[in-house]
């Protein structure tokens, strides 16, 4: 019994993942239908393009209590809208630098390229992300009412 109690108290991070409809979302779908195992800590939000992810979405996710935020889009050259992921790459780089500058742990915000065929890569990214977030504990810095 005591062992189970400790297990129950272990911190489970909550990740908000903005997934591009054309690649990463399909990639996560592939992981699902292929019955691949990965941590259930992700709240996926499908967006039309990684380039449509406003910095405000990211700040707001942290503000509403996300422990980690992932933005995932198509590999360079594969964007459904030709160049949306290139814009995202630039913008997300700046957001990442800004979040680090104000003192948020850099591990809490990640970006990845996941194609519709990369179900395995998706499970791996989520697995690593959860593993990195666990030692950090809950994100209280940008969270409201803390």
């Amino acid at each position, binding site marked *: 019994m005591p062992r189970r109690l400790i297990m129950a108290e272990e911190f489970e991070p909550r990740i908000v993942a903005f997934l591009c409809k054309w690649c990463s979302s399909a990639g996560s779908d592939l992981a699902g239908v292929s019955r691949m195992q990965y941590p259930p800590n992700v709240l996926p939000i499908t967006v039309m393009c990684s380039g449509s992810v406003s910095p405000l979405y990211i700040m707001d996710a942290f503000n509403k209590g996300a422990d980690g935020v992932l933005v995932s889009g198509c590999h360079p050259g594969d964007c459904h809208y030709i160049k949306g992921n290139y814009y995202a790459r630039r913008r997300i780089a700046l957001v990442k630098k800004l979040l680090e*500058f104000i003192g948020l742990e850099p591990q809490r915000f990640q970006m990845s390229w996941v194609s519709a065929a990369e179900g395995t890569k998706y499970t791996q990214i989520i697995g*690593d992300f959860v593993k990195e977030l666990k030692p950090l504990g809950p994100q209280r810095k940008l969270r409201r009412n803390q």
Partner: protein
Amino acid sequence: MVNVEDLRNEAKRILKEEKVKYIIGYTKSQNGMMPTPAFIKESKDVDQLIWNPTCIHNLVKFLVDEKRRKHREKKPDERPVGVVVKGCDSRAIVVLLQEKFINREDVYILGVSCENGGVIDEKKLAKKLKGKTAETITQDEKGEFVISTKEGKVKVSGEEILAERCLECRANYPVIYDTLFGNKARKKVDDPFKSLDKLESLSERERWAFWKEQLSKCIRCYACRSACPMCYCDECVVDTINFAVTADTSAEEKAGKIKWIEKSPISSENFVYHMVRAMHLAGRCIDCGECERVCPLDIPLRFLNKKLEKEAKELFGYDAGFDPDEPSLVSSFKDEDPEDFIR
């Protein structure tokens, strides 16, 4: 040194020839030595114009107001508006031109060069004078500043009195102008991002403590937004939109009106506000220092914008406000943009 008479003569000429609607410049204020913005409509008033190291305001903000005013008029006066700008302010005009917010023919730019000086920092000045009141500040040939007070004259070096941004300035003379006053010689600056070094050398925990302390002070008066020439959005993310929810309000209508940030000045909301503002100014902020100057709680807002200016330069080789024909930072990309942070 810029001869203020030249500026007045040119102002007089363009007003007499009715080339401009009016001229936005600096004039002596009613109290103290700090100047106040002046709107000169008639050529007989040009003697009110002044130019000295206390002219810290960025007058480009008034061009934004002017555009709005003109838009509301039924029969607008199509003549341009004259505006006195320093190097940094001229970069603000470049960004507005780049974004096609104003047209080049809507503005007549009277550029003044800061030469080897700049503008003063009021806080540094107050520290230096220890309670004495300065009456005038002038710069001599050697570049030293002479502050005259009731108790006599004080000579100080530029570093002791100039605003931090002037010491790091990369545009000491206007990059765009119709008439230029003063020398056109680039000042040598070793490290334009030196003021960031101290903050960047801190650990993550210390940086968080710093920003937590600073941004918790914010009372959300939005003075930074009001003074910024780049904050011209008609609808700002922090504003509450009056939206009455009735029985027949559809779900789509409600969903379209997301309240992103709470009005209350609590730390978490202040962080979102200031970070979003910093992101909106990435590749647009030209470091005129107005946000920091008008902040009633002395929050060092400049660091946030300066940091993104530095990253834009280092990651993407982008300099805001130098070329009106260049695409803006976040609406362009290069194939070789760094992606080492992407998994």
